[in-house]
């Protein structure tokens, strides 16, 4: 491979194995000055191993990384940072009690004075923030910032390190649409200044909006590098999964039945107002809206995680009082949270123990949990849901995001719910697992279970729902039938 002088970074024949299993096999990659280069692949394709090697967190088994014409030898984080390779992590790593400036210069304070000199770093930090056009005061404490603003601080930190390459791992996963627009403006400015960006995201729309080239990895192998404008979405998916997925969304032909849940005039001050809807057996009700529109808040109130002020929740014709998730589960409601880590599972417990957690009472005989019944039930669900693991006793913290999500779904299904609320069920999981979740939604409705699907991905909402409720700033702005809904109409109501 000839080295192109435009290339700031060139990776040749990079390989890495863990315990004999090849995580990366002969990877090729090149990055040009001033380009945004998408790195695509399903979970487990080797993206994060590759990024860890670039950051100097892992040592490759073989292959070369050439940075600015020079072979990177040492592979140590500190040195790579100094040379100009920075990463914006998916989970933001900032110290909440320190100020913006203190965070930007964390670990490098003495570059300015031998004593801590807040004045100098405040000034320097403010210069950088102004440079990238971010309206944040360098003296503000991090804890007072939004997640998007924290991300901007991370970018400022990278720039203060004279970053020439910035790796962004799912940078928009917690941002609102406005904030995404702000991030993209900054990315464009950085590009113009010659900074190269490696952009990792599962969101197709973003890839097509912001990136110049796309490199695809699959199962640790280098598959292809293409110009973004020459690769259409279906071709990209085919490269990622190694097969063609024509009909990602399946037709839901189940017959709609009785009313399972009816919500009447539900109110919670500052969160949502006058919410009215009904879901029937075998029906998928999609809930669309921008971040902060109140989608998750409504779900949490119905499931008893938060209190609501006024309104009625009617299940199968009976008015019910739901004061806790315990009450909700007793009334046949299951909730798969958008925040899998915080609300979904117990990391140190096994797959089996997590799946049985919500229905463990059913396995108690006299005083003790009947372990063999529990094992049997959990095994059945793990098999049905195709959870990939060495054993059902494997701890959930060792599983991939998609498999963790399946464990959470398994837990909900074991309670035999008549209504399942899925809140961003496919966030952060790869396309293969997404497809399985769509199939699962159809299996649920076939069994006569009602489903509420909350999602930020409009194609998902449009593809899966029978009816779509649109929220805007806590108010219900539309209730559309599948036939009348398009991305455009939903967006119109969402910004109402």
């Amino acid at each position, binding site marked *: 491979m000839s080295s192109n002088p435009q290339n700031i970074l060139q990776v040749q024949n990079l390989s890495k194995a863990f315990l004999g299993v090849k995580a990366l096999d002969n990877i090729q990659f090149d990055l040009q000055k001033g380009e945004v280069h998408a790195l695509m692949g399903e979970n487990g394709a080797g993206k994060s191993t590759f990024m860890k090697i670039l950051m100097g967190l892992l040592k490759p088994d073989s292959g070369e990384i050439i940075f600015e014409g020079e072979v990177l030898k040492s592979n140590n984080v500190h040195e790579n940072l100094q040379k100009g390779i920075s990463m914006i992590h998916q989970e933001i790593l900032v110290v909440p009690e320190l100020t913006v400036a203190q965070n930007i210069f964390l670990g490098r304070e003495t570059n300015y004075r031998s004593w801590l000199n807040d004045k100098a770093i405040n000034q320097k930090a403010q210069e950088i923030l102004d440079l990238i056009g971010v309206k944040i005061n360098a003296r503000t404490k991090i804890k007072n910032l939004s997640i998007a603003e924290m991300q901007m601080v991370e970018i400022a930190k990278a720039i203060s390190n004279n970053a020439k390459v910035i790796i962004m791992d799912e940078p928009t996963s917690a941002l609102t649409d406005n904030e995404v627009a702000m991030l993209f403006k900054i990315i464009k400015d950085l590009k113009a200044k010659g900074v190269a960006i490696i952009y990792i995201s599962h969101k197709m729309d973003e890839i097509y909006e912001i990136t110049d080239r796309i490199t695809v990895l699959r199962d640790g192998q280098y598959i292809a590098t293409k110009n973004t404008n020459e690769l259409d979405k279906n071709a990209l998916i085919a490269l990622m999964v190694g097969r063609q997925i024509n009909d990602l969304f399946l037709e839901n032909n189940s017959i709609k039945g009785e009313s399972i849940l009816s919500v009447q005039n539900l109110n919670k001050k500052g969160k949502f107002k006058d919410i009215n809807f009904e879901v029937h057996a075998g029906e998928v009700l999609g809930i669309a809206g921008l971040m902060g529109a109140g989608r998750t808040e409504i779900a949490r109130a119905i*499931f008893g995680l938060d209190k609501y002020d006024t309104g009625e929740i009617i299940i199968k014709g009976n008015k019910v009082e739901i004061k*806790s998730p315990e009450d909700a589960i007793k009334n046949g409601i299951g909730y798969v949270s958008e925040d899998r880590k915080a609300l979904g599972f*117990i990391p140190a417990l096994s797959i089996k123990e997590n799946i049985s*957690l919500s229905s463990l*009472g059913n396995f108690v005989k006299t005083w*003790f*949990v009947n372990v063999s019944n529990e094992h049997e039930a959990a095994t059945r669900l793990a098999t049905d849901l195709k959870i990939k693991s060495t054993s059902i006793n494997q701890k959930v913290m060792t599983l991939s995001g998609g498999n963790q999500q399946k464990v959470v779904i398994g837990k909900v299904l074991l309670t035999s719910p008549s209504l399942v609320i899925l809140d961003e069920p496919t966030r952060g999981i790869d396309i293969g697992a997404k497809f399985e979740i769509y199939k699962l939604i159809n299996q649920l409705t076939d069994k006569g279970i009602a489903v509420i699907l909350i999602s930020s991905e409009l194609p998902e909402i449009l593809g899966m729902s029978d009816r779509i409720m649109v929220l805007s700033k806590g108010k219900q702005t539309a209730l559309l039938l599948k036939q009348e809904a398009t991305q455009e109409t939903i967006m119109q109501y969402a910004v109402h």
Partner: protein
Amino acid sequence: MYLINRLRKYGIFVVFIIISLILSFISPQFLTVSNWTIIITQASINALLAFGVTFVIITGGIDLSLGSMVAVTGVTAAMLAHPDTFPVALPIFAGLLTGLLMGIFNGFIITKSKIAPFIVTLGTMTIGRGLALILSKGRPVSNLSDSFNFIGGGDVFGIPFPIIVLIIVFIICSLILKKTLLGRYIYAIGGNEQASRASGINVNQVKMAVYSISGLLAGLAGVLLTSRITTGQPNAGAGFELDAIAAAVIGGTSTSGGTGTMTGTLVGVLLIGVINNGLDLLNVTSYYQQVVMGIIIIGAVVLDSWNQKSNS
């Protein structure tokens, strides 16, 4: 490799065996039935407290009031245990009930106020000590009936009664932790409290239960101690909570919650007992004993964190 992994998993048990072997070589009295009877009898008070606090620590909490509860419950029992007053069941029952009520109080404040268990039980620790001094007017309560003194000093078929109590309580606590709904919920809450609530677990109920159990067992320890020393001492039990927490931690219970076993705690209790006993036999003064104990506590936690790293 397999062997090393096994050894790691049972690290503290192996340490226990090795130290016991070394002591039996150095001191001929060490490996005798009578010496072990003494070790276990002496360890029984700490064991009861450690079993209770193991439940609490696995949920991610802590109970600093154990030592004070031993004093209050001991004094309460002693005041009702004078000869020719009440049947022996009454002082025992009163001691247990007092412990249970204090445990319920801890649990109630912790679940209702959302104040950290460290602070709440620090408060009850001081309250309890005060109550013990008030009840006893600051003086030891002595002149207890023979039947009461049997609990801590008597034996059945040659086995000291405290050892029998220890074995029964150990079996019950192990069963609760391993086999019951409550046990599973205790692990779940310590592993991720929010997710436990979202899974339909009544988190407050479980927390109430663990602090109540901890109080009840402290009451039992108080009765046992009072009977053994044949006096209700308002100053008894000072620092016992730290020994109990140390035993649980040495036995592999993580103070961040979610992990731990009763068997581990039992080994932790016995290890502390064996080391104290061995150092006594070797005529090491109690000042040095404290230094050794501290080193072992830190060593155990370091060992545990290595294990966790190698597991992940």
